Structures are given as structure tokens and as C-alpha cells.
């Protein structure tokens, strides 16, 4: 059985890739995808910990809550995608571009 630390490591790598994606890319779609990557890296960590805490066949509240949380995150991600993509479409309609740096009117 693959040790849990591998999963955590993978999750961390994925999260880092997401963060770097958000910070360095200007394409809104890519940024968006990076956000999704971070969310899903978190999901991976949840699931990995859930499996690590699973002992025997009996239903374990601690392990189960990790699994359940993943569903919450997926739901939220889905809603976020809906809102986010709508925003990107609206921005594109205005600017004919999806470069996030084009949208910086709200500066102080």
C-alpha cells in the first residue's frame, strides 16, 4: 500500500503548482484552472488522511468526515466555476481579452 506521505507530497506539489499558476499567469482561464488545482490538491489531502485514519471495517467518524468534506469542496468548486466563468465571459465582452492585468480599474 502506498504510504500516505506520498499522497501528501503529491498534494503539496499540486497546491504549489496551483499557487504559482495563480500568481504568475495572466490568462484568466489558466488562473481559474490553477485555483481548481489547489482545491483538488486539498481534496487529495483530505482523502489521503481519511484513508490513513480508516481502521478496520467499522464506520469511523473521523475518517468519514474527511471524505464528506471532499464533496463539500467539489460542490463549492462547481458553484465557483459557474460564477467565475460567467465573470470571465463578462470581462471578455467588455475588454475583448481575458488578461487579468487588463482589469485593474479598482486601484487605490
Amino acid at each position, binding site marked *: 500500500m502506498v504510504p500516505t506521505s506520498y499522497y501528501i507530497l503529491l498534494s503539496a506539489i499540486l497546491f504549489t503548482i496551483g*499557487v504559482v499558476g495563480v*500568481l504568475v499567469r495572466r490568462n484568466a482561464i489558466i488562473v481559474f484552472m490553477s485555483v481548481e488545482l489547489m482545491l483538488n490538491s486539498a481534496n487529495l489531502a483530505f482523502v489521503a488522511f481519511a484513508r490513513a485514519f480508516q481502521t478496520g471495517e467499522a464506520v469511523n467518524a473521523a475518517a468519514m468526515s474527511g471524505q464528506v468534506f471532499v464533496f463539500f469542496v467539489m460542490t463549492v468548486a462547481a458553484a465557483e466555476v459557474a460564477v467565475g466563468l460567467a465573470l470571465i465571459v463578462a470581462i471578455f465582452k467588455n475588454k475583448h481579452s481575458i488578461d*487579468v492585468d487588463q482589469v*485593474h480599474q*479598482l486601484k*487605490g
Partner: protein
Amino acid sequence: MHDSSTAFSLSSLVPLIVVFPLLGVILNMLVGKRLGDPWAGIIASLMSGLAFVIAVLQFIGLFLDNFHATTITLAEWIVIGTLKIPWAFQVDTLSVTMMLLVTGVGTLIHVYAIGYMKGDERFHRFFIYLNLFIVMMLFLVGGNNYLMLFLGWEGVGLCSYLLIGFWFDKGANGVGNARAGRKAFVVNRVGDFGFVLALFLIFWTSGSLIFNDSFKYFEEKAKEHATVTAPAPAKAVEAKPAEGHGESEGPTTEQIATAITLLLLVGAAGKSAQIPLFIWLPDAMAGPTPVSALIHAATMVTAGIYMIVRSNVIFHLAPTSQMVVALVGASTAFLAGSIAMGQFDIKRVLAYSTISQLGFMIAAAGMGAYVAAMFHLLTHAFFKALLFLSSGSVIHGVEHGHHALHAHGGGGHDHHDAHAHNAQSDSHAAQASAASPDHHEFDPQDMRNMGGLRKQMNVTFWVYLIGAIALAGVFPFAGFWSKDEILADAWLIGSKQPYGVAVYVLLSVAAFFTAFYMGRQVFMVFFGGERTDAAKHAHESSWVMLTPLVILAVLSVIGGALNLPKFIPGGEALGKWIEHSVEVHAVGFNLTVALISTGVGLFGIFLSYLVYGRSPMMTMTDPLERLGFVFRFLNGKWYVDELYQAIIIRPIEGFATFAAFALDWDLWHDFFHDTIIAGGFRWFSGFLAGFVDKGIVDRFFDGLGGFVRETALNFREFQTGYVRNYALMVLFGVVAVLGYFLFVR
């Protein structure tokens, strides 16, 4: 104080004596204007007459009750601690004498005034004042305590003021009469000030203002004093009586009594027109003539004498005050008598004569001759009221003649008009004396405008003559007996103490003056030829005016019978009567004195005949004017008014000006208010606005605002608008929070 089984019905009626005139006041106030002329006057006279009836009933009651003094208490007035003052009337021989006088003479003058005031626009108001005067005078003489006396005292002062200024729109510059009223009022305040202090002192010493109680205290003190004095050597006496009671060392009873009596004398000098407060009475002649007769000759001005006689117990304790009182009275008699010789205004002569006669009474009261004082008070009330009323009749006649003359010349003055204009006549009193003979306005009171009136005004002439002879003190008229009694008292005192001699001499000279100026007046007014056309056309007054004159003339003739010398059967009636209220020492008839005073009187009349009667003056120049500056001095009234003007009024006005301009305006307003308060305030508000508000508060809040602004400007830099920057910051935040959790905690 005693069972009043027999006299209950009569003495308990005494409150009515005040109620009737008061009813008259109220009635005339309510409906007087509608009743008008002459009904308002008839009501007032009726009420006064009813009061006279009550007074007569009191007189009878006293006879039935063996002259016992009775006190009729109506109600409590003031009760504060030990100070208890009731509304109570004292019915004794002294108060009843005064009640009879006030209501009797008052009623006659009311009747006279109906005729005199005919056609006056304020007819009913005059009678309201007259009735109010009667009310107040009866409070004055009827009360059983000093406060009721004071109430009446102030009340008659008020009426006097109102009546002097009755024609307030007349007189010099249209304010002369009002000024005369004010002068009377203010001068009387000076006297009242002394009187009030005396009242305080009486209460403070004896603990009561009720006559009987405080007199009892003083009598006991006097007895104590006598018992202590008898064995002790004279020097040690002074402090003894006070120590005897265990009181702290204070003034002796005699010293207190002296203080009280001197203060009472100040009060009496104000009301009874004595030196130095007599100056108001001549000016008071600005009032209508009935007022001059009633208030300023017969009744009110005698209040001071009544008050001294009433307070005789206290005066007995203070021989020094008695001497002062006697000397003040005698000097006043002398001074006013001399001034009367130099006056031209018929009423002014009488006014100074009144002052002079009041001086006789005060002197008598001071010498302890209370019967003589009261006797002279009564007879003087008769003949002086008579003289004033007759002079009113003369003025009326001359005024009438003046207008009749004009009616002949220009036409247009009817009978009624003449009466209405009469109003103006009295008002000249205020300015007439100094008027020069060539003044163009006709003065009906100036004796130089008269002469020969004997033919036109026969009745008035005879009654005037009777009054003048009575005043001059010719045997056997009323004035002879009363004046002689005073002179006999002075003679007696003079044989014991030196001041009595001075009093006697002053009074005798005053008696000579009296005879002379009355003779001068009669010769000037009634004898010789008419000096003006007005005098030629003068005619007799109506009978409503003459009837009281005749009654008063009869009283002036027989008034002496009130107190004839002892050797005549029924003599000393007044003395025996007054005796029940006041401690009396009879002097008896003194033939020497009587002969001297008769001689002096006759000599005065003879001299006036030589000057005025033998060769009647036909021009406007008085023969006495040949005396030069002496006459001018007398005519100028010894320049007392001018003296007061210089030493009292001018400094006071100067001080008032100083207070108004220097103190109030310059110092208080300009300096204190403007400079100190307003300036200080301005400086302080400037300090607050500039230094505190602008310097501290504003700078603090400006600084705060600037700081916030600067900070905000710096923080602005963070908000770049680039999403990635925000994300980076979030990252930093997350790293920081995680770092905190991982490494710090």
C-alpha cells in the same frame, strides 16, 4: 379693662366713626362720578356728619361712664412673637376731644366745599379725598397703639399730598402745584423717619406699641428710678436702674426716653410744620382753600401736638427733650410770625400764622402744659378754619369780580365759568409771594389787589374780623384764653428755669406779630378804597359757603368758654375733662401775664392801624416796604427755602449728578462694564478662540486628520487593481499565519 355695663352701647359704637366716612369713600368711588355735583358732596358731608354724631355719642358715653377710658378691640392686626397689635379704638377724653374736633370742623368744611368746588371737573374726587382724610385722621386719633396712629399719620399725609396737588395741572409752569405736593410729601418723609425710629425704640424698650402697655412700663421705670435715686448719691445713680434688673449695662431709662422723645419731636416737626421742617406748609396752600382750612390748619397739622400729648408719660421722663420741644415751638412761633408780616398772598399770611400758632401749641406741649396745648389746638382749629374759609370766600369774590369785569368788557364769561376758573386762583399761592406788583397776570390772592371789600362782602368781613380778633388774642375771644394759658405756663416755667424766659419772650413777641399781621391783613383787605376793578366788582359768596363760616365764627367767640380760668364758675372744664387721660398740672390764671399779652396784642393792632388803617394804602406799594432790607428779608421768608436749596438740595443734586454721570456712567458703565467686564470678556474670548481653540484644539484635530490622510495615502499603494498582487498578498498572509502557528505557538 373694666366692666362696661352702662356705657357698652355707646363706646362699642366707636368703630362706626371710621365706617361712615369709609362708606362715603367707597360710595363716591363707585357712583360719585355719576352723582356728580353736588350730590357727591352731599353724601360725603352726610357721612362726615354721621361720624360727628358718633363722636358726640362717645362724648355722652364718657359722661355716663365717669370718664373711664375704654378700649374697643375689633380684631388682631399683627401678631409676631411678642409683638401684638390689634385693631382697637381707645375711647378716652383725649381721643374723643380730637374726634369731636375732626368730625365737627370736618363736616362744616365739607359743607363749605360743596359751594367752593362747584363746577370743578373733579368734584367727586375731591370729596373722596376729603372723606378718606377723615377716615385716616380718626385712625390717628382713635387708635390705642402707636402703629394705628402711624397708619393714620401716613394716611393723612397721603391725603394731604393728593389734595395739595389736587389741581396738579395748574401752578407755575403747569407743575407748580404738583411740586408743592411733592415738597410736602418729601419733607414729611424726613419727619416720618424720626417717628418710625421712635416707634422702634419704644417697642425695643417697652416691648409693646399699645399706649397703655408701654406707658405702664415707662411709669414703672420712672418709679424705680425715683426709689433708687432717693438714697443713692447723685453721681452713682446713672448706671443703677439697669443693673437692678440684672440686665447688661445699657443706657438709662432717661437716656432712652430722651432719644425716643427727640425722635418723636422730629416726627411732630414734620407733620406740625415746626423748625426745621416747616417749609412745606406755605406751599401746601396750592391746594383748594377748604383743604387748607381742614388739613393744613385745623386738623392734620395738629397731629404732632396730639402725638406729643398722647406720649406725655415718656416726655415726663425726659426733661431735656421737653426743653428742646418748648424751644423749637417758641422759635417756630417767632420765626413764622415774623415772616407772616411780610407776605402779600392772603393765604400765605394765614399759612405762616398757622405755623406760628402750631409753634405755640408745641411749646405748650413741651412745657408739660397739655391742657393749654389742647385748648389752643381746639380754639385755633375754630378760628383758623374760619379765617381760611373766609379767605376762600374773599378770593372767590375777587375772582368773581375779575371775571364779571371781563364779562362786561369782552363778554363771553357766564356765571359758571367764573367758578370753574376759581380753580386757578388757589394755585397762584405757589408763586404769588415773590411776584412783583407789575406782573400782568391777575392774582386774586394778592392782598394788594383787594381793599375796601367791607362794603361788597359784608358777612365775610364780619366773620373774618371775628376770626382775626380771636387769633390776635383779644379779650374775651377764644384765642385770648388759650394763648394766655400758654403764656402763663411759660411765665411759670420761666420763674424756675432760664429756658422758660426765652420761651416766654419768644412767644410774647410772636403774639405781637400775630396781632400786627392780622390787623395788617384786615386793613389791607377790607378797609380803604378798592385798589383794583376786580375788588370793586367783588360780591358776596353763596349761603352754602357762608353758613359754616357763621357757625365757626360763633365757636371762635365762645370757644374760650371751654377752659375759662378757675375763679369763674364752670372754669377749667377742658382741664378737668382732659385730666382723665393725661396727667395735668394746672397753672391757673395769671393776671400779670394776661395784662401783658393783652397789651402786646392791642399794641400790635394799634400799630397795624397806624400803618395801614389811618391812611389806607391806595397804591400797590406796602408802607412796610420803606423798611427796606428788613421787609425784603421777611418777604423772602428769611430765605429758608433758599438756604435749604443751598445746603441740602444743591449738594444732593450735585451728588446725584456725580453719582449719575461720574459714578454710574463713567465709572460703572464705561469703566467697569465696558472696560473691565466687556473688555475682559472680549480678551478672554479672544484667548479662547485664538490660543485654545485655534492653537490647541484645531491643531490637534488638524494633525489627526492629516495623519489619517497620510496613512491612508500610504495604504493606497497596496490596492493596485491587479488580482495577482492581491493573491500574492493572500499568500503572504497565509504563510504568515501558518508560520505563526507552526513556529511561534
